[in-house]
């Protein structure tokens, strides 16, 4: 886990949970238009399509879900551009952990770096190219 952010939101667990799992609310802040199968993340295996304003599309699947506690999304290893051309992307994972807090809800977000940033892979590639 490389990017790691924790914030306290002035709302209860239920409100924060719905902002993470309801596609209408998720689309308000995520930076992409989100369409979840059935409108909400309800269980592991739920799928969602994310569409950015530049037309780029990526799909994610719920890897783990515990209501009002934990949501883990895994990006599928490809994306589609506005012209519909599909190209590979390394999978990465976003993890949301919710906890009750005196002032509302504590939310911790972590995102794993994709594997292609593995510094040792880079080093090996450099060595073999010489």
């Amino acid at each position, binding site marked *: *886990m*490389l*990017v790691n*952010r924790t*914030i306290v*939101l*002035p*709302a*209860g667990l*239920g*409100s*924060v949970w*719905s*902002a993470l799992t*309801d596609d209408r*609310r998720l689309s*308000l*802040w*995520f*930076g992409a238009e989100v369409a979840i199968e059935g409108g909400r993340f309800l269980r592991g295996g739920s799928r969602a399509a994310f569409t950015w304003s530049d037309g780029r599309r990526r799909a994610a699947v719920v890897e783990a879900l515990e209501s009002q506690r934990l949501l883990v999304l895994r990006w599928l290893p490809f994306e589609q551009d506005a012209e519909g051309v599909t190209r590979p992307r390394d999978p990465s994972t976003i993890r949301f952990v919710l906890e009750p807090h005196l002032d509302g809800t504590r*939310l911790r*977000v972590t*995102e*794993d*770096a*994709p*594997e292609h*940033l*593995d*510094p*040792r*892979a*880079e*080093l090996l590639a*450099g060595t073999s190219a010489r």
Partner: protein
Amino acid sequence: MSSIDHVFTALSDPTRREVIERLSVTGGASATELSEQMTVSRQAIVKHLHALNDAGLVSTEPAGRQKRYRLTPKPMGQAMTWMTAVGAEWDNRLDALRRTITDDPA
């Protein structure tokens, strides 16, 4: 631990950061030279160099009976770029999330 975590774990230690700083200034050094410059035991320096090597941050070349260590800063650059970009993206998102929740607690 995901592989790129090695870079940040490697950089989390102040002695290893000093090793990196010295290698970047001198262009390369042996464990003995680093040990003398930093007044840290050679054994400890070797351990730190192994951690940096595992993270892909230094490479070695033979120099007589000793190994010479050099910086390979590219992985650090890529990892930092990734972390800065994705971190900024999350800062924006979480600001927007706070506004969403304040405006419409649901």
